[in-house]
């Protein structure tokens, strides 16, 4: 709760700073504030359930087997990603010079929503968290007012996001109708006790909720908005969407299905396995045909959503740890890649030809993060995939085979970019990299290597 109050107060302060022409100190204040909040989040040892707000700040009896939500893993990941992206925004928000403070405030509000979405005990908070996260995002996606593709991306994201919210809400209403409560524990008890009862309304509720949540994380068959929105939005916002928002969406989805609906796993597990396989195949195969790096990253984020959905299908007890490790590896690598994208300001592959000659550090950052995304040892991405595949293998061997084949495809398009960056001839002008971006790339690379060598750190934490 402290963390959430701190975040929202920080957001309000940032918003106010925009009014008083204190543009210069906005970034330092936000960064310092986030560092302070990260300290609070790390000392989140006191687990206690907040009855009033339906927030989940503790480990409840049934959640002992599912201890992802102790707020150490996912919330920490959200905070760290948010912090790195905020530092990146030093250059990333250059397109909207007059509204810097507003944009920072929107990002912080969105992070509030993300924290709520991964730590709810009441379905009302699930809905509110996802909405508080999404509504600032609609604005941010369309924030480059004079760029028509940003406009279009904002409108598309808004219309489809609102549509998905409708489905999510309808599902929640039906679940409420069947169980008579929004409380997670009571719904868990309902599913536990009524395994053999065929509650039609309850099942319909699960289906609608599934549609809503799968829409939000951008997995097949509801993935079609992802590449459009990701490639249209300003790069800094895309990096936020593909990390913080994805973490929060997955946290919400996994907690709902592997935690609350755990006993009914046999009924929805197969559906998720199929969704996951379709997402992996679609994402990876389509990514091969892209001519824009940003769009390729968008498709690859769809593919990564597919890998993560495998764990939802597996519905095991070890799953959350693997998910946290994978999400950490994925977020760090994405942030580093987007840092390169923001610095060059170019989106097509040709613009990355000969990047190694123009700026060595950018090229190294791009190489290591793309290798990690491809899952090459000894980087974090490999460890993430390894733990993911081993947890899923017992239940869905075929799914793991699909995943391995599609990762092989993914190595092709990641390597294509890396080869272009080092060996192809392109423009020769050197690129100036601001210190903030260098710092972010450095942190990401070090994180990727450290997690690859010592994944136990995150696994213990989660």
């Amino acid at each position: 709760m402290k963390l959430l109050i701190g975040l929202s107060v920080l957001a309000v302060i940032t918003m106010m700073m925009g009014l008083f022409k204190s543009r210069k100190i906005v970034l330092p204040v936000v960064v310092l504030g986030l560092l302070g909040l990260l300290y609070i989040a790390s000392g989140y040892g006191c687990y206690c359930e907040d009855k009033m707000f339906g927030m989940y700040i503790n480990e409840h009896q049934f959640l002992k087997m599912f201890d992802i939500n102790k707020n150490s893993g996912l919330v920490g990941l959200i905070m760290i990603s948010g912090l790195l992206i905020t530092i990146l925004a030093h250059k990333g928000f250059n397109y909207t010079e007059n509204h810097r403070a507003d944009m920072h405030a929107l990002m912080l509000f969105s992070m509030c929503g993300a924290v709520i979405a991964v730590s709810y005990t009441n379905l009302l908070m699930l809905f509110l968290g996802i909405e508080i996260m999404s509504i600032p995002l609609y604005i941010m996606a369309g924030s480059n007012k004079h760029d028509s593709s940003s406009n279009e991306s904002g409108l598309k994201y808004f219309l489809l996001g609102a549509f998905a919210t409708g489905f999510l809400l309808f599902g929640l209403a039906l679940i409420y109708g069947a169980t008579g409560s929004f409380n997670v524990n009571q719904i868990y008890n309902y599913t536990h006790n009524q395994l053999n009862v065929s509650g039609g309304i309850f099942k319909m509720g699960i289906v609608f909720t599934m549609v809503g949540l799968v829409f939000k994380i951008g997995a097949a068959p509801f993935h079609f908005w992802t590449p459009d929105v990701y490639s249209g939005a300003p790069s800094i916002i895309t990096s936020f969407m593909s990390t913080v928002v994805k973490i929060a969406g997955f946290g919400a989805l996994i907690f709902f299905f592997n935690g609350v609906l755990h006993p009914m796993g046999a009924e929805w597990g197969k559906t998720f396995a199929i969704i996951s396989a379709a997402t992996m195949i679609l994402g990876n195969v389509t990514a091969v045909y892209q001519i824009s790096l940003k769009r390729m990253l968008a498709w690859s984020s769809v593919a990564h959503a597919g890998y993560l959905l495998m764990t939802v299908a597996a519905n095991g007890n070890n799953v959350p740890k693997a998910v946290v490790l994978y999400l950490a590896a994925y977020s760090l690598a994405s942030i580093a890649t987007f840092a390169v994208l923001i610095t060059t300001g170019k989106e097509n592959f040709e613009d990355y030809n000969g990047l190694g000659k123009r700026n060595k550090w950018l090229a190294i950052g791009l190489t290591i993060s793309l290798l990690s995304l491809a899952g090459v040892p000894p980087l974090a991405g490999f460890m993430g995939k390894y733990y993911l595949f081993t947890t899923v293998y017992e239940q869905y061997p075929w799914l793991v085979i699909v995943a391995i084949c599609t990762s092989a495809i993914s190595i092709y398009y990641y390597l294509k970019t890396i080869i272009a960056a080092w060996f192809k001839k392109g423009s020769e002008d050197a690129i100036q990299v601001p210190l903030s971006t260098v710092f972010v790339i450095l942190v990401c690379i070090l994180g990727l290597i450290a997690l690859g060598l010592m994944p136990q750190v995150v696994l213990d934490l989660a």
Partner: protein
Amino acid sequence: MKVPIEHYILLSTVLFCIGVMGVLLRRNAIILLMCVEIMLNAVNLLMASFSTYHGDAAGQIFVFFIMVVAAAEVAVGLALIVMIYRNFKTTDINLFNKLKW
């Protein structure tokens, strides 16, 4: 005479489907927004009727939150549509095809 809960479920499902069909078939951004509102109102009706059925106030509180969130969403959405209209001079979503795979 008491109206059975099934009627409410049926009514709100029909309303919800009208909204969904509207979103899928219509091509004007503002009408799309209205259809999304129909969907949310269908949910509100369902929540309120289940709330009365269970004799539990939580559903009605949920309705309040849905209303507020819907208002915030509409504010953001209309602002986006105004911005789009200034740049494109139209609100027909078929014409926004700059981004395609």
